[in-house]
């Protein structure tokens, strides 16, 4: 029963991710895609968590935090790229 619920939840998450992917593909603007991508990253966290229960392992718990870190960095990088074109500035105060 519990496994079934988990699987349902996983299915829902997958559908949700899929909807984001549609947004990624559709756009229409790049920021739209970045938003969706960020959300996918967060969704992946949930999926990983669920999968790790399903697989009865704690081996993937590291991935949760990691995904959080990465989607954060990724989002920042994208938005900086969109806004300023360059991601890493030589000297901000110049």
């Amino acid at each position: 029963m519990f496994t079934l619920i988990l699987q349902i939840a996983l299915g829902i998450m997958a559908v949700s991710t899929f909807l984001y992917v549609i947004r990624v593909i559709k756009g229409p603007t790049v920021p739209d895609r970045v938003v969706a991508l960020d959300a996918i990253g967060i969704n992946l966290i949930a999926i990983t968590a669920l999968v790790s229960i399903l697989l009865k392992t704690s081996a993937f718990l590291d991935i949760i935090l990691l995904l959080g870190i990465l989607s954060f960095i990724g989002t920042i990088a994208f938005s900086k790229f969109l806004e300023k074109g360059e991601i890493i500035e030589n000297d901000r105060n110049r």
Partner: protein
Amino acid sequence: MNEQKTNDLILQTATKLVSFIILLFSFYLFLSGHNAPGGGFVGGLITSSSIVLLLLAYDLKTVRSLLPVNFIYVAGAGLLLAVLTGVGSFVFGAPFLTHTFGYFQLPILGKTELATATIFDLGVYLVVVGITMTIIQTIGEEE
């Protein structure tokens, strides 16, 4: 450039906290690698992503004043360390890259496993940090 300045206050403030969390996490991953997912690669990569986060929130100049290291040398040192771990086994007449490990009773930490493989992994870690930062810095500088 001047008119493109933004106020990244939120980002910068949060970064101060977040980058430490990430750094800590990377150390954890590195150290636990032998028994749980993680290891030198991931550890190194995450360490460098915390530095990248700093780079994103601040700029190259600030970060360089924070970390005044030539990252190529870091990579070189790491590689040297890894290779020397292998060479070390020559001394004991064992084949190249033979690792050994043992469980030791240490103060505070208790029974701890110490493995030469960890030193090798440290080399990996240093190389990964060194090269990612070298790459990102050199590209970032080239404007």
